[in-house]
């Protein structure tokens, strides 16, 4: 009875000691594998995931910054263009104003010159007519004195008579 129990126990222990009995029962390999994995885990956490996450964050930041820069540049472009247009419009209106002003000034100058010229012309005409009148007046008495003799001479030549005598006659007849 007791011998059977003992033999059963020895059989069990012999089975347990026999090494490759049941490969589904874990043995000391467990701890070595766990230790190896913990090393791998530590290295990957420290040297892989951390830097990779930093790289991903950095890249995301760069992308966001580039997008922001692009948006800013586009905004600046639009602003510059509108400013350019505004400046252009202002310059155009200023140029128009200047042109109008120049035209008005030119007209003014021309008018001034024309009126000056008119004054000069009137002056000159006046002077000329005055000079003519003075000359005429100065010539008139001398001419008046010669009118009689000249007309007599003319009449004599036309009539072929001596107008001097007929004059005296006519004078007598007239008186008579």
């Amino acid at each position: 009875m007791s011998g059977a129990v003992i033999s059963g126990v020895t059989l069990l222990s012999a089975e347990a000691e026999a090494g490759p009995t049941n490969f589904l029962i874990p043995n000391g390999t467990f701890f070595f594998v766990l230790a190896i994995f913990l090393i791998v885990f530590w290295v990957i956490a420290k040297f892989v995931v951390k830097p990779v996450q930093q790289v991903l964050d950095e890249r995301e930041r760069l992308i966001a910054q580039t997008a922001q820069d692009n948006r800013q540049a586009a905004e600046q472009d639009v602003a510059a263009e509108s400013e350019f247009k505004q400046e252009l419009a202002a310059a155009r209106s200023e140029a128009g104003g200047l042109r109008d002003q120049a035209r008005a000034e030119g007209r003014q100058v021309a008018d001034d010159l024309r009126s000056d010229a008119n004054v000069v012309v009137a002056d000159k005409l006046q002077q000329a007519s005055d000079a003519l009148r003075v000359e005429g007046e100065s010539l008139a008495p001398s001419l008046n004195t010669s009118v009689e003799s000249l007309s007599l001479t003319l009449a004599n030549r036309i009539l072929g008579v001596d107008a001097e005598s007929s004059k005296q006659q006519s004078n007598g007849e007239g008186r008579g």
Partner: protein
Amino acid sequence: MTMIKEFSPVTSIEVGSHTTATWLGMTVNTDTIYATLVAAAVTLLLAFFLRAKVTSTGVPSGVQLFWEAVTVQMRSQVQASMGLSLAPFVLPLVVSLFVFILVANWISVLPLQFASAEGGAVELLKPPASDINFVLALALFVFICYHAAGFKRSGIIGYPIKVTKGHVAFLAPINLVEEIAKPISLSLRLFGNIFAGVIMVGLIAMLPSYIMWAPNAIWKTFDLFVGLIQAFIFALLTILYFSQATETEESHH
């Protein structure tokens, strides 16, 4: 006699056999630890390569694009289910889980087989996830982490009550079973898939060598896909468990 044995075709499959040693008084599967170290070395190499060449303004290297793609994908998953601020270590945890499991699973695609003395096909580098220790270590670590996050969020008394009660009080036993089932299903899902892959390779190795290459190529291609999907599911479920552990009554929507 030995010559005949060496040239005889593979006629048996060894399931779940490991080369063992005793380290620190514990029995360890040295082949699993060896393959795990290789996977860890590849992962760490990729990590240190990134550390050396990481850039935010220059042209990122292929390694950086890989890490970025994984991080972005996992970050969007974490953000969608729980938000990044609740447990900031979830993101590095799932990224490490995903990449580590992926590399560990893809180890099995290397065509490094030899025939053992007993006539079975043995992989030089077995995928570590075909060892229960590997998947349990990861799943229990995740289990402890998300419960810790839950305690931190809901309080030392409030969290157990929340977990037990769930949404409806009378389903408490089922909630408890579900809570226990989580790490088991998480670990055994990965284990089962990768273990099945190893058995498939063993089966295919029994075929005659003039045809063996075809199903081997097809299976290993599919195994790449399985390895990727399982790594992704492990990471995704980790996020899901974290979000379940850290949600509160008010945050239901």
